[in-house]
C-alpha cells in the first residue's frame, strides 16, 4: 500500500511530461489525458486514505523511500515520502479540488489553441504541490515548493502575449524566490544545527538546541511562508497573479498553492512551539495580512482582485491560527480545507461570470446577472454565505473556531488577536456582500467591450457548472462534517497535537459577537451598494479607498524602492564595470601601448643611433666584467 505514495506525484508528472513533450498530435486529447491523470491521482489518494483509516490513529503515518538523492559526505538527502494525516488532508484537497478544476477548465479553455499546454502546466502544478505535501524532508519539500512557484509562473503568464500577464508571472516568481531564500536558509540552519533536514529527526530534536537557533529557523520559515502564501510583506504578487486564466486563480491562488505556507508552519509546529518569538512574528504577520487583505478586497472593482484580497485575508486567518500553536493548528488546517472549497467555488463562479460577459472583470459593469446565470448565482451565493461564516455553512465552523482560538491565546495578546479576527470577519462580510450585490443584483450596467460587442450573459456549459455545484456542496457541508463531534480535531491530533487553551470568553459569546459583526458588515454593504445605484465609473473615494485600490501603496513602494533603486544600481554597476574595472585593464594595456609608443621613438631607423646603443651596450658589458672581476 505504501508503495502507492509515489504514484500520487507520478501520475500528474507523467501527464505534464506527456502533454508538454507530446506536441500538436495530442491537441485533441490533451485535456482528457490531463484530467484523467489528475483524477487518477485523486483515486490513489482516496485508496490511501481508506487504507490509512484502517490503521490505529497513532500509527497512520506511511512512508516510502525511493532512492538516495544527494549522497555527499555528511549530507544525505533522500527522495522519500511521508504520508500522515496532515499530508493526507492536503492530498485529498489538492487532488479533489484539482480534478474539479481540470474538469472546469475543459470548458473554460475550450477556445484556447494552447489548451493542451495549459493542462500540462496544471498537471505539473499538481505534481509539484503533491510533492510538497508528501515529502519527508525539507529539501524535497523545497523542490515541490519551487516547483509550485514554477507552475504558477507558467500559469499566471499563460497568456504571454499580454505584457501584463508576463510581468505578473515574473513578479510572482521573484517574490516567491525571496521567500524561497528564507526556506533555503532555514534548511541550511537546520543542517548546521541538527545535521539533517528530515522532518522526523529535526522536529523531535528541537529540545536539544538553543531557542535563538530555533527562532532564526522559525523566522526564515515564516519568510518562506510569507512568499508562498502572499502574506505581508510579500503579498504583492497575488493581486497581479489574477492575470492568469480564472481556473488558475481558483486552483493556485485560492485552494492550494497559497496554502503551502500554512502547511509549512503547521508542519514545523515543533520548531515554532519551542520558539515563542518566531511564533509571535507568525501571529503578527497573520493578523496584519488578515486586515490588509480585507481592506484591499473592499476597494477593488475587479472581481478577481476583490477575491484575491479576500484570499489574502483568509490565509491571514490560517497563518494567525497556525501561529497560535497547538490551540490553532487544527483550525488553521480546517479553515484551509473549507476555504479550499468555497474559494475555489467563488473563483470558478467568477470565471463563469466572466465567461458569459466577454471576459469583463469590472464589477461595475455587471449587475442583475442572477436571472441570466442561475446556477452560477446559486453556487456563488452558497460560497458567499460560507465565506462570511453564515451559521451552518463551512466557513462558520472553521472561522469561528479560529476566532475562539485567538481569544484563547490568553492575555492582552489574546484580546488583541481576537478583536482583529472579529473585525476581519466583519470586513469579510462587507466586501463579499459588496461583490455579491454588484454582480448579481441591481440593474444591468453592461457595456460593450473594446471591440464593440454587447455582452450576452448566459449560463456556462456543464463541464463548468458541475464542478461549481460539487464545490458548493463542499462549501455547505464540509465545515459541519468536520466540526460535528470534533472529527477533524481527532483526525489531525496525532500529528499536530491539540490544546484547548483557556478561553476568557465562552464559545457562545464569541459566536454571538461574530454574528453581530457579520450582520453589521453585510448591512453596511447593503446600505452602500444595494440601496443606491452603482456608478459605472468608480467615484474618487476616500484616501483609504484610493490607497486600497492601489494595494495600500505596497506596489508603489516596491516600485520606487526596489525597481527604481535596482535599476539605478544595476545601471551604475554596469558603468562601474565598464569604466572602472575594465578601465583599469584597458588602462594598463593603454599605458603599455603608450610606453612602447615612446620607446618606439628610440627606433628612429638611423643605423648610427643603433650603433651608439650597441657601443654603449658593449661598454656597459665591459664595465660589468671588470666590476665582477674586481669583486
Amino acid at each position: 500500500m505504501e508503495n502507492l505514495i509515489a504514484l500520487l506525484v507520478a501520475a500528474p508528472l507523467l501527464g505534464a511530461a506527456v502533454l508538454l513533450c507530446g506536441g500538436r498530435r495530442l491537441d485533441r486529447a490533451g485535456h482528457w489525458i490531463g484530467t484523467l491523470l489528475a483524477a487518477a491521482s485523486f483515486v490513489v489518494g482516496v485508496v490511501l486514505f481508506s487504507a490509512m483509516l484502517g490503521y490505529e490513529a497513532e500509527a497512520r503515518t506511511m512512508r516510502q523511500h525511493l532512492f538516495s538523492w544527494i549522497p555527499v559526505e555528511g549530507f544525505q538527502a533522500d527522495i522519500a515520502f511521508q504520508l500522515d494525516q496532515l499530508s493526507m488532508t492536503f492530498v485529498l484537497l489538492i487532488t479533489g479540488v484539482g480534478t474539479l478544476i481540470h474538469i472546469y477548465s475543459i470548458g473554460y479553455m475550450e477556445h484556447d489553441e494552447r489548451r493542451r499546454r495549459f493542462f500540462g502546466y496544471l498537471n505539473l502544478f499538481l505534481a509539484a504541490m503533491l510533492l510538497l505535501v508528501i515529502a519527508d524532508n525539507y529539501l524535497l519539500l523545497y523542490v515541490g515548493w519551487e516547483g509550485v512557484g514554477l507552475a504558477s509562473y507558467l500559469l499566471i503568464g499563460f497568456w504571454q502575449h499580454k505584457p501584463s500577464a508576463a510581468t505578473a508571472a515574473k513578479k510572482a516568481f521573484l517574490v516567491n524566490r525571496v521567500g524561497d531564500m528564507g526556506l533555503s536558509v532555514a534548511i541550511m540552519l537546520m543542517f548546521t544545527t541538527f545535521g539533517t533536514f528530515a522532518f522526523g529527526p529535526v522536529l523531535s530534536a528541537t529540545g536539544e538546541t538553543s531557542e535563538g537557533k530555533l527562532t532564526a529557523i522559525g523566522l526564515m520559515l515564516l519568510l518562506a511562508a510569507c512568499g508562498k502564501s502572499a502574506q505581508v510583506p510579500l503579498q504583492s504578487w497575488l493581486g497581479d497573479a489574477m492575470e492568469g486564466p480564472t481556473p488558475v486563480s481558483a486552483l493556485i491562488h485560492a485552494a492550494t498553492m497559497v496554502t503551502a505556507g500554512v502547511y509549512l508552519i503547521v508542519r514545523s509546529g515543533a520548531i515554532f512551539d519551542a520558539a515563542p518569538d518566531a511564533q509571535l512574528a507568525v501571529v503578527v504577520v497573520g493578523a496584519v495580512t488578515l486586515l490588509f487583505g480585507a481592506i484591499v478586497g473592499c476597494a477593488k472593482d475587479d472581481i478577481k482582485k476583490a477575491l484575491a484580497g479576500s484570499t489574502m485575508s483568509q490565509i491571514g486567518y490560517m497563518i494567525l491560527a497556525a501561529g497560535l500553536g497547538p490551540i490553532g493548528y487544527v483550525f488553521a488546517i480546517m479553515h484551509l480545507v473549507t476555504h479550499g472549497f468555497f474559494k475555489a467555488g467563488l473563483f470558478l463562479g467568477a470565471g463563469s461570470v466572466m465567461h458569459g460577459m466577454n471576459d469583463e472583470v469590472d464589477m461595475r459593469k455587471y449587475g442583475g446577472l442572477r436571472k441570466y446565470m442561475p446556477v452560477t448565482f446559486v453556487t456563488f451565493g452558497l460560497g458567499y454565505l460560507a465565506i462570511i461564516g453564515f451559521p451552518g455553512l463551512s466557513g462558520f465552523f472553521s472561522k469561528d473556531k479560529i476566532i475562539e482560538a485567538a481569544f484563547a491565546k490568553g492575555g492582552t495578546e489574546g484580546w488583541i488577536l481576537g478583536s482583529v479576527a472579529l473585525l476581519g470577519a466583519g470586513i469579510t462580510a462587507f466586501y463579499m456582500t459588496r461583490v455579491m450585490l454588484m454582480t448579481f443584483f441591481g440593474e444591468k450596467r453592461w457595456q460593450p467591450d473594446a471591440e464593440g460587442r454587447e455582452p450576452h450573459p448566459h449560463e456556462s456549459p456543464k463541464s463548468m457548472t458541475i464542478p461549481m455545484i460539487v464545490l458548493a456542496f463542499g462549501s455547505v457541508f464540509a465545515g459541519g462534517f468536520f466540526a460535528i463531534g470534533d472529527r477533524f480535531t481527532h483526525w489531525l491530533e496525532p500529528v499536530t497535537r491539540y490544546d484547548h487553551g483557556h478561553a476568557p470568553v465562552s464559545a457562545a459569546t464569541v459566536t454571538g459577537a461574530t454574528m453581530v459583526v457579520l450582520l453589521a458588515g453585510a448591512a453596511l454593504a447593503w446600505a452602500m451598494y444595494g440601496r443606491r445605484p452603482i456608478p459605472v465609473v468608480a467615484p474618487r473615494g476616500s484616501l483609504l479607498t484610493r490607497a486600497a485600490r492601489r494595494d495600500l501603496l505596497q506596489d508603489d513602494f516596491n516600485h520606487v524602492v526596489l525597481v527604481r533603486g535596482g535599476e539605478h544600481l544595476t545601471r551604475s554597476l554596469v558603468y562601474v564595470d565598464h569604466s572602472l574595472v575594465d578601465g583599469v585593464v584597458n588602462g594598463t594595456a593603454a599605458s603599455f601601448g603608450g610606453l612602447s609608443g615612446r620607446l618606439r621613438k628610440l627606433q628612429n631607423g638611423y643605423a648610427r643611433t643603433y650603433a651608439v646603443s650597441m657601443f654603449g651596450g658593449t661598454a656597459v658589458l665591459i664595465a660589468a666584467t671588470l666590476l665582477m672581476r674586481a669583486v
Partner: protein
Amino acid sequence: MTGLAAAATTSTGEAVQFWILGTVAVIGALSTVLLKRAVHSALSLAGTMIILAVFYLANGAYFLGVVQVVVYTGAIMMLFLFVVMLVGVTAADSLKETLKGQRWLALGCGLGFGILLAAGIGSASLNNFNGLGAANAAHGGNVEGLANLIFTKYVFAFEITGALLITATVGAMVLTHRERTERAKTQREMSEERVRSSHLPPLPAPGVYARHNAVDIAGLLPDGTPSELTVMQTLRRRGQMRDVSNEALADLKALEQRSEARLGRDNDEEEVAK
C-alpha cells in the same frame, strides 16, 4: 732580435720608434675621422695602416707586416679609393650633425669605452712577455711557423675563409651587377626616340661662353644663366656641377669697374696734367 726575446721591456730603439710612429698613427686615425673629404680620409688611413705594418714587423710578425702592406694598403685601400672616385672625389661631407645628441653620445661612449679598455689592460698586470724568438725559430722562421699552423691546426678555418672569399667575390658581383629589367633598345628605337625628343642635334658642349672648359662647368646661355644640358649626366646627378654664371658676371663687373677706375685715373691724371 733581442727585443723579441722574453723581457718586460723593449729596446730603446723600438721605444723611440713606437712613440714617434704611434703619434703619427693616432694623428692619421684622427684625420680619417675628422677630414671632410673621403679621399683625404682614405689617404690618412693608408698612412696609419703602413705604420701598423711597421709595428707588426717590430713585434716579430714579419709575414703579417708584409701582408698588411700588400693587402690592406695595396688592395683594400685602393678599392676604397676607386669607390671614392666613383662616388665623387671632390664631394665633401657636411660635418654638421643631423641626429640630435649623436655627437655627444658618440663622444661619451667613445671616452667611456676607451677608459674602460685602458683600465682593463691596466688591471691585467701584463708584465711578462715571452717574446716570439722561440716560436719563430721552432719551424725555421715566422712564415714557416704560420704555415705550419694554418695547414694543420687551422686548416678548416682556412678552408672556410677560402669559401668566404669566393662567396664575397660572387656577392660583390651580384650586388653591383645591374639587372636589365627591360628589353634593350634597338638602334632604331633609340634614333626614333632621339627624333621625338627636343634635342635632335648633339647636346651643347660644356664651357661655352665660360672661361673654363672643365667638364663640370655648365655652359652659359646667352642671358648668362647656366644650361644643365651641357654637363654630363653623372656629374649632374652627383651634384658636382659648378655654376659659374654669377662668377662670370661678377668677373665682368669687376673688369668693368677696374677699367672704369683705370679710365678714371687716367682722367685724373689728365686733369692733373692739365
